[in-house]
């Protein structure tokens, strides 16, 4: 094992997959010389050259469209969109084109496109650079949505995403880029669609994504001192959703809290809550609670009030325990 940062783990995954497969190329704004806005593609230009490391104009639709067309002809593009927020300027390419091309054209195309984009607040980046929009994309059939929370997961999942023959929206978290963690020296892969039980517990299940995984783990540690054992499930993949792992845990605990950084309203927390209610209502001893951001844009300098944290998770867990 070795220690690395989340951002370095991404760079390693890209470099390894580019070395492994001649058809993999990266494309995006500043991905070449500057090595990406956050440094995820640092060193790739030197190693793989301009043919496979493509710096582009600030043209998100052109970037994604190019990736789609290239993938349809057998290449494996990894496009970097600088912020999740900027995915909104190429929504047609993602939603109407990429997600539907295989289905609409009778299954003749494989579209091994990965779009990497960082989400999340915590950097005072303001309303247009801090959103979590994963539920928008999880709502679209034809896309896979991956959202890793640790250096280990980000590397293994990115490698798998690049090898996947379907379009994958790979949502990183910029507040986690500097996070350190252990990863193996040797190659490893993590399957898409498999959640990870990050902490076992018998009393309450907390399903979390991205940065909230760490908030949930912090909450679990503190609640353990009070004798409440929380099971923390890191979804890792939003779509396809790992129902099995969630259901198995809820069967054990009979209590569920779902937490994500995105606004609580209309989010994946609602989807998971509904799913559990539809299919295993008899197992539940309390209402399913959601912990998410309030229904306001991400405020520049009021983030402390905005971002959900471990304290909010603790409150929700206690509430279901007391029900």
């Amino acid at each position, binding site marked *: 094992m070795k220690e690395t940062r989340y951002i370095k783990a991404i760079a390693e995954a890209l470099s390894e997959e580019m070395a492994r497969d001649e058809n993999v190329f990266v494309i995006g704004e500043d991905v070449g010389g500057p090595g990406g806005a956050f440094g995820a593609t640092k060193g790739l230009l030197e190693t793989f050259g301009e043919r496979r490391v493509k710096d582009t*104009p600030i043209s998100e639709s052109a970037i994604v469209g*190019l990736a789609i067309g290239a993938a349809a002809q057998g290449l494996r593009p990894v496009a970097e969109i600088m912020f999740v927020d900027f995915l909104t300027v190429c929504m047609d390419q993602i939603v109407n084109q990429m997600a539907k091309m295989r289905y*609409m054209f009778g299954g003749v195309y494989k579209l091994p496109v990965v779009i990497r984009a960082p989400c999340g607040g915590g950097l005072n980046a303001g309303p247009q650079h801090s959103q979590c929009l994963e539920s928008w994309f999880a709502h679209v059939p034809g896309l896979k949505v991956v959202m890793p929370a640790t250096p280990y997961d980000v590397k293994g999942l990115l490698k798998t995403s690049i090898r*996947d023959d*379907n379009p994958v929206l790979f949502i990183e978290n910029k507040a986690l880029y500097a996070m350190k963690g252990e990863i193996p020296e040797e190659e490893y892969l993590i399957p898409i669609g498999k959640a990870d039980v990050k902490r076992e517990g018998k009393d309450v299940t907390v399903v979390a994504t991205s940065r909230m995984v760490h908030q949930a783990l912090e909450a679990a540690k503190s609640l353990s001192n009070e004798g409440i054992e929380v099971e923390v499930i890191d979804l890792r993949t939003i779509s396809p959703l790992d129902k099995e792992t969630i259901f198995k845990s809820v069967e054990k605990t009979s209590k569920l809290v779902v937490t994500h950084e995105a606004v609580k309203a209309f989010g994946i927390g609602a989807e998971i809550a509904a799913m559990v209610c539809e299919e295993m209502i008899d197992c539940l001893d309390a209402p399913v609670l959601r912990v998410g951001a309030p229904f306001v844009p991400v405020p520049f300098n009021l983030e402390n009030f905005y971002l959900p944290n471990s304290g909010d998770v603790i409150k929700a867990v206690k509430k279901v325990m007391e029900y």
Partner: protein
Amino acid sequence: MVNKEKLLEMFYLMVKIRRVEECLLDIFAQGKIPGFIHVSIGQEAVAVGVCSCLEQNDYIFTTHRGHGQAIAKGIDLKRFMAEIYGRKDGYCKGKSGSMHIACKEMGIVGSNGIVGGGIPISLGTSFASMFKGEGNVTICFFGDGAVNEGTFHESLNLASLWNLPVVFCCENNGWAQFTPQKVYMKLENISTRAEAYGMAGVTVDGDDVLKVHEEAEKAIMRARKGQGPTLLECKTHRWFGHFAGDAQKYRSPKEIQEARGFDPIGKFQKFLFKSKYISPEYVNTIEAKIKSEIEEAIAFAENSPIGGIEELFNDVYV
């Protein structure tokens, strides 16, 4: 100069497109085709003039008004018709309909229902050709309405910057759905925008198949040689409405009549008669051949089943 054999093939394809679309209007009116259709009657010279320069492994992107280009690129009429009928034996198993027909083996990457939506994707096929060192080109067809989408700007800039082997073919029929060109843009010739992207731009009489062919050939040669993309504007005329059944209250009967005066098939036929390449008997022969091809395609489509519920879940993911 285009040889006789090629000229006759072009004439056959133009007549075929016209007859197929006339037939589609007819069966659509009879309620046999679900959804919408958009015909390109009057614009046949653009599809044929450009596609007659292409090889099977070259790629085309088409639009909601894409029947003509698909036929000109060599789509099989039976499976084409089955798709328009929404049947299982259609190219897309009945999931695309008229607006999204694709035929991978003939390089018809797919037609797009989003105005300007295909333009960025054409960067990708042309990029792949360049990346793999293949000599094939991509033709991206779109209408005049698409040039005011942001994707047009983003894509032409990038294609020019990277010298991608792509030709942007603007089929300018003067109408963006229900709105005439002078109402939505100040420029008269869309091709003048090419200069802003540092690429070649040319406007051609899109009702003259030989002129379209000549300019398309030059643009395609430039693309194949790595000399970059071209914005090829073909000015043509839309004889019918935006969609089949459109009453066209936004157009004066006089303007419609004038548009129909520009008949690319009539013009080409006159040339072929004058050059003694064809005779009235020859025309009768190909009309009969096309008639039987269409009848066969319709019979094939009508006998093809609609996909079952199991088909609903296929091909969302690999």
